[in-house]
């Protein structure tokens, strides 16, 4: 297939064999690990700057140019901190907690196409695979909270489990509406299917509803405000990571931000055309892999900004309000929306900008 051969990573792998093959695999894994750390730190910085923006203050701006090294300094502080484990804790579960969360987030990143040429592995069931992996991540929170033997941790983790299991359904329905239009679960094919029109515009009404449902469910799945009951600091101390210190806490924190990145990246891939340039304005230029990444990260950045905007705008929901929102509103709407979208696709009532502008 032509698409998979465009992938830089698979080209590397094909050009080697034996020990070199393993080395290239390790190199790619290290690249992703590096991206994981850098993106996590940058997102934390962005969050603080955006918080400053919304609260009419500057945010961190002293360490390095424009405060760029602030979070690196924070990370160094966290690394140097003493790691203490509660005496009563089940150490095995306590440590397994953050490993599961981090591994789930890392595997999720691997499937996301950054551009036509840059993607960890283009699996046949792409989008389904990401939802499956992210559903494993919540177990890390549950195990970690149980292992730390703290009632606040446990209550936070129980809420997290409840929230993830509920909102996964709505997110799934939103994904299905897109898959109906794309006719594929493969990430690259979903993006390629948006060549003429992004799915947000192609599916107009049902796609916009699905987009909103996906953003809401995604915010809930990454445990962010207004759905951050998991760590509601006014009631639960710090929620499920109350007993974690130093890097243990940092791992959870990083994984949370990476999960937010995954949600934003999925939104831009599913609805906003992923790496595709709007109206193909950069299509003829050299270094296509760069332009693909440029547009992908631009769209993802806009969605991340939106999620951060939520955080500094909405008050936190109560647990019963959270469940009411999911089971009484989002799920029925999502269910009907999927049927409506199926009807639209069947009757071909979709908007194709390529046909309208005749390009």
């Amino acid at each position, binding site marked *: 297939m032509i698409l998979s051969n465009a992938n830089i990573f698979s080209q590397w792998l094909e050009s080697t064999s034996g020990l070199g093959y393993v080395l290239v695999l390790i190199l790619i894994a290290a690249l992703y690990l590096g991206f994981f750390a850098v993106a996590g730190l940058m997102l934390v910085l962005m969050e603080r700057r955006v918080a400053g923006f919304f609260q009419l203050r500057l945010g961190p701006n002293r360490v390095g140019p424009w405060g760029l090294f602030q979070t690196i300094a924070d990370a160094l502080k966290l690394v140097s901190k003493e790691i203490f484990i509660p005496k009563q804790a089940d150490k095995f*579960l306590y440590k397994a907690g953050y490993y599961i969360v981090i591994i789930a987030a890392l595997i999720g990143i691997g499937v996301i196409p950054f551009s036509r040429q840059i993607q960890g592995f283009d699996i046949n069931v792409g989008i*389904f695979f990401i939802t499956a992996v992210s*559903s*494993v991540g919540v177990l890390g929170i549950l195990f970690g909270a149980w*292992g730390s033997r703290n009632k606040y941790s446990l209550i936070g983790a129980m809420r997290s*489990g409840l929230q993830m299991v509920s909102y996964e359904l709505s997110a799934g329905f939103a994904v299905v509406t897109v898959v109906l239009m794309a006719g594929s679960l493969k990430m690259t094919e979903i993006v390629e299917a948006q060549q003429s029109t992004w799915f947000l515009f192609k599916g107009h009404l049902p796609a916009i509803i699905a987009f909103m449902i996906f953003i809401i469910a995604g915010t809930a799945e990454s445990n962010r405000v207004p759905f951050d009951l998991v760590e509601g600091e006014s009631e639960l101390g710090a929620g499920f990571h109350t007993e974690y210190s130093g890097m243990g806490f940092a791992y959870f924190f990083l994984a949370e931000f990476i999960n937010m990145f995954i949600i934003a990246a999925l939104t831009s891939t599913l609805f906003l055309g992923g790496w595709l340039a709007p109206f193909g304005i950069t299509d003829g230029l050299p270094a296509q892999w760069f332009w693909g990444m440029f547009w992908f990260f631009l769209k993802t950045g806009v969605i991340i900004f939106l999620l951060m905007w939520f955080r500094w705008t909405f008050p936190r929901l109560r647990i019963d309000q959270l469940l009411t929102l999911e089971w009484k509103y989002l799920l029925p709407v999502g269910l009907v929306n999927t049927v409506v979208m199926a009807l639209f696709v069947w009757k071909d009532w979709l908007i194709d900008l390529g046909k309208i502008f005749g390009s």
Partner: protein
Amino acid sequence: MESILFYILAVIILTAALFTVTTVKIYRAVLYLLIALLGIAGLYFLMDYDFMGAVQLSVYAGGVMVLFVYAVMLTEKVGEPVRKIALFRRIIAAVTVLLLMGLALYAIWNFDFPTASNNKPTTINRVGEVLLSTGDGGFILPFEVISVLLLSVMVGAIVIAKSKKSKIENHD
């Protein structure tokens, strides 16, 4: 390469399964079971059966394990080591397990495993076509029955959630 990965996964699955039944801390048993299920998902991915692997991840590792976590919390004295079982019961259990294992091993050794003639990866499109096919080897009837069942379960959950007043709400 594949065989090395297979043996690594097999060792992980078997060790985790062994620990699942031997650990005295019930919560650790859940974690070991999770590791075993993840290993099995890995086996599916190794066989290029991506769809099955993803289903294994989302249904067993993601769904059933979360249920287990909640169910285990409802058991008695969940934080303490599991109490010792009487010797007589242990012997009965051992004999039953050995018999079952013998049966399984006998079946495996005597079955002539044919080599699959096509080694193409099973794509999701193919799975979809077979699920909705009405011809030979099609799964349309069970697929539709299960779909209707699951849909009615979901609609039922929504209806229960939307029902006017529950007893708990009347309480306050």
